[in-house]
């Protein structure tokens, strides 16, 4: 199997709630850029989180980067997460800490307690953090407090943190949902460049259908917890995408 993400009949949901995913079949090949689209509640965020075991799989096959996620031990899951970058819609960063400190959090899984404070971290890790910030155009703000940055800049810090992990797979859950059009375009542009330059596999959940068509190699539509559309981005017509949101074709 050469897919970096492989699911068959995947059912998953948050603990104590009904399953959101209701039999998802999906294969993502290395280097592919996949956009997940679908209405709220379709299962995009649940699918992304289930890929790194943050939402438990209840049934079906789920293999990510060679790791059978449902059967993985806690240590195996942690090791998998160190290889998978994750950018959240709400950034999930520490507002009080510096941009550099937040970026270096990406090394926590790899270097453990040695990397818990930038001043104590190995020089190589500090240098790599600055390169990651340079990659997203924020190296000049490395010492600034994160909360002083705009939403778009904070999302770029989240991308830098993900890059800090040296990931094989990058997951992004509606990374531009709370950003204005200019900031959205900037973030999506950086994400696209990273994917191409680093030959990184990217799975990104999006509501912006134009971004999905422009950015992704392939668009996967989710509806009611199932994959209802899976086609190359260039071939797909906008009316078919809009159907996922209940709009008339």
């Amino acid at each position: 199997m050469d897919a970096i993400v492989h699911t068959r009949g995947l059912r998953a949901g948050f603990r104590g709630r009904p399953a959101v995913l209701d039999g998802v079949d999906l294969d993502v090949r290395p280097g592919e850029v996949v956009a997940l689209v679908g209405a709220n509640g379709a299962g995009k965020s649940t699918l992304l989180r289930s890929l790194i075991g943050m939402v438990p799989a209840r049934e079906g096959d789920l293999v990510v980067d060679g790791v059978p996620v449902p059967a993985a031990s806690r240590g195996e899951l942690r090791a998998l997460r160190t290889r998978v970058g994750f950018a959240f819609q709400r950034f999930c960063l520490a507002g009080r800490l510096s941009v550099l400190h937040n970026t270096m959090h990406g090394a926590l899984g790899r270097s453990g307690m040695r990397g818990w404070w930038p001043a104590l971290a190995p020089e190589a890790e500090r240098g790599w953090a600055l390169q990651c910030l340079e990659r997203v155009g924020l190296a000049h703000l490395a010492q600034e407090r994160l909360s002083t940055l705009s939403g778009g800049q904070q999302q770029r810090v989240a991308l830098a943190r993900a890059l800090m992990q040296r990931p094989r797979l990058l997951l992004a859950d509606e990374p531009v949902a709370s950003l204005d059009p200019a900031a959205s375009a900037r973030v999506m542009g950086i994400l696209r460049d990273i994917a191409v330059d680093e030959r990184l596999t990217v799975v990104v959940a999006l509501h912006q259908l134009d971004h999905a068509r422009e950015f992704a190699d392939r668009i996967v539509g989710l509806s009611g917890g199932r994959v209802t559309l899976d086609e190359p981005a260039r071939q797909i017509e906008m009316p078919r995408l809009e159907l996922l949101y209940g709009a008339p074709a």
Partner: protein
Amino acid sequence: MNVGGAPASAPAVGHPGPRWRRPSLPAFLVAIVALALIAHGLTSGAAVSPLSLVDGLGRTAEFVAEAFPPDLARLGPVAEAMLVTLEMALIGTLIGVVASLPLAVLAARNTTPHPIVHVATRAVIAFLRSVPDLVWGIVFVVTVGLGPEAGVLAIAADTAGFCGRFFADRIEDVEPDLIEGLTATGATRGGVLAGGVLPSVLPSFVGTSMFALESATRSSVVLGVVGAGGIGIELTTSMQLLRYDEALTIILAIFVVVLGVERLAAWIRGRVGVGGEVAF
């Protein structure tokens, strides 16, 4: 009247509701019990008699007359005892703050390894907090003997309860998003704690520790009264020997030191409360 140019035919808004609401039964009962206690206190054990107040004013005037001018002959021993008092406060606070860190991590809902550990640790913290520092002083005088060591331990126990509670509350206020974000990077529980949670709450911890130091400085003065070392024993001796001029010297020394610690603590709180990331 058409205020602010609102159209006269504007649609009516909902009724604002009654100005006063009948209190709930628990609130009513609490008020009744509080009033009953005040009434009982004023008419019996805890009464404040105007006559004794007038009488007391006269004796206060006598005390002040005898206390002035302060006797500086024993300034050396007083300064030495004051130094011990300050050291008791500092060391006791340091031990208490360090002890409270693991307690807080175990007691906070979002970092505790198990709900039972959360409940048990909260109970320990509540116990440490609910026993007054003077009682801790008496206990430690019994266990380790008279002297500053008992005072240090009393302050440490009191500080551990105070800081443990506020540190745990602050950790619980940490955004769940931050913990989720760090967990997603593959960080261990310790990594999430040391790398994200503790750095985020550190300024608040420093501020709380400064409040604890202020409280400990005042406590360390009083702890001497029960034999737990420091300036308190000097003050008690002077008062018992009716050396009010010497007592005034001690009171002034206490005032200077407590005020100095309060100003220093306020300055440190101000430094960590504003500006960028704390540089430690």
